[in-house]
């Protein structure tokens, strides 16, 4: 099976030692064509495509991210013990706090004031947690990264003055993190592709600008239904009242689609170097010192969760979407430490 994966990688020019720049141009062409096609469809049917992409790809892309992080987690933490302890502890605590805040926010327990202050506290906590991780990683590498603290404190000040801007920023910036992961993976495995890839990112920015120009004066989307209301609110339509909700939703869905594409196709092809379900390259699944059965069982359990999520979406899309985006904050948070280690 592994040889099949290597053969696939070779055919795509992804194997180590492949001729330099082989595949860079087709890669860029496919990437840009995908972005153009996605933006055209999304601009026409933003709500429908938002529903479809979340339904189809939300679960699988989470599973793939989990698989990627599992492959990057060392068996012995060694000098990185403080880093991984802070990272995993932060992911768990911040996720629990977020879920608690969300659940309480939907009830009468929280007034608007308490909600705003709690949001600002949570936002400050995530910024300081990331700053702490950058600093700890710097100490591991004997580099002074204390400059992150003034930046983090300044950002925290901004977060307290405008808490909901940060939350909205997370919604739009999180999809782009996948592209950063992809850049780091390319740097490690296909550095000769990076120039083409950076051109792709420029093209994506141009496509976004063109879409904004086209949709700037578009009428707001009909958000009368439960699902469409959730989608427009998620994109910030309740907050950015002066901007067409059609433009906001289209932008968000396009970025999410690219995000899903990066995690489901590009990063596995470039970064995993084996089939995702194979555990032989996962350090934690090492037969000698690791937990191969447990690792396999966790991956299978993750697959079952994906199937369950599909079923739940089918039964009640709106409720499942709410629950999914509440607990999906865990994967947003988990990206931070693994990205920091790749930098």
């Amino acid at each position, binding site marked *: 099976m592994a040889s099949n994966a290597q053969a696939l990688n070779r055919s795509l020019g992804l194997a180590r030692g492949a001729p330099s720049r082989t595949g860079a141009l087709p890669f860029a062409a496919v990437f840009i064509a995908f972005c153009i096609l996605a933006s055209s469809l999304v601009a026409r049917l933003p709500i429908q495509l938002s529903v479809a992409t979340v339904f189809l790809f939300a679960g699988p892309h989470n599973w793939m991210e989990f698989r990627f992080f599992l492959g990057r987690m060392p068996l012995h933490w060694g000098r990185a013990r403080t880093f991984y302890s802070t990272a995993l502890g932060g992911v768990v605590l911040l996720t629990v706090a977020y879920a608690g805040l969300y659940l309480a926010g939907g009830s009468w327990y929280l*007034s*608007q*004031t308490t909600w*705003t*202050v709690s949001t*600002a506290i949570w936002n*400050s906590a995530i910024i300081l947690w990331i700053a702490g991780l950058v600093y700890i990683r710097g100490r591991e590498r004997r580099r*002074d990264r*204390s*400059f992150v*603290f*003034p*930046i*983090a*404190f*300044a950002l*925290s*000040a*901004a977060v*307290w*003055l405008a808490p909901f801007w940060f939350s909205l920023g997370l919604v739009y910036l999180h999809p782009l993190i996948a592209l950063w992961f992809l850049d780091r993976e390319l740097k490690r495995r296909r550095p000769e592709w990076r120039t083409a890839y950076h051109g792709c990112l420029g093209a994506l920015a141009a496509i976004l600008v063109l879409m904004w120009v086209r949709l700037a004066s578009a009428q707001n989307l009909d958000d009368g239904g439960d699902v469409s209301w959730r989608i427009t609110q998620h994109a910030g339509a309740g907050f950015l009242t002066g901007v067409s909700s059609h433009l906001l939703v289209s932008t968000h869905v396009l970025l999410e689609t690219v995000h899903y594409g990066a995690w489901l196709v590009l990063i596995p092809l470039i970064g995993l170097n084996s089939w995702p379900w194979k555990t032989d390259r996962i350090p934690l699944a090492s037969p000698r010192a690791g937990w191969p059965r447990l690792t396999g069982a966790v991956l299978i359990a993750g697959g079952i969760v994906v199937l369950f999520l599909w079923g739940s979406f089918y039964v009640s899309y709106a409720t499942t979407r709410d629950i999914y985006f509440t607990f999906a904050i865990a994967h947003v948070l988990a990206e931070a430490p693994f990205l920091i280690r790749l930098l």
Partner: protein
Amino acid sequence: MKNWISRIAMVAFLLASAAPAFGDLLPDPPNRNRTEPKASAAKVPMVITREYKGSGATLEIPRSLWQRLQAEGAGDNQQYGADAGRGLTLSGAQTVVAGLFLSLALVFGGVWFVRSRKRLDPLARTAFLIGAVALFAVAGGIVYGNAGPPPAVTRSLTTSILVPEARNWGAQGQVTLMVVDDDHPITLTLPDKK
């Protein structure tokens, strides 16, 4: 005898002049023991502004406040008072915590710069200083541009905003009451008089 007559005349003059002086006295200050109207339980912001082309004064009241005032008439003012109090507290807390974080940013940034200036090459050091000055200049410009009018006169509703002739007497006239959407404070718009 002359002294006695002059003293009587002085008292009579005082009594005679006391009547108009007493009549011109300001009204009694509010009695602390008396029951205040229910609306005073909640303080809400109010803006006085002018309308260049307007023909008459208007008083705009946010719709939610209007509805709450109506509810207050039914004895439901306590929750409203609490809500309004929380709203005022939030803004203050946000500013205080943001200021605290900004102070920490300055302190940590300064410490980092002092500690690492030997390691930084002159170009990076100069770039950092220029960047910091530019950041503060931009932030300072934005803050200064958004600063409110002078506090002594225009940030509180006292008689200091009135012309001297109106300070004792106040001003009166007709006002058009308007119930508006919730994104406005209570606004008294006065027509501009050239």
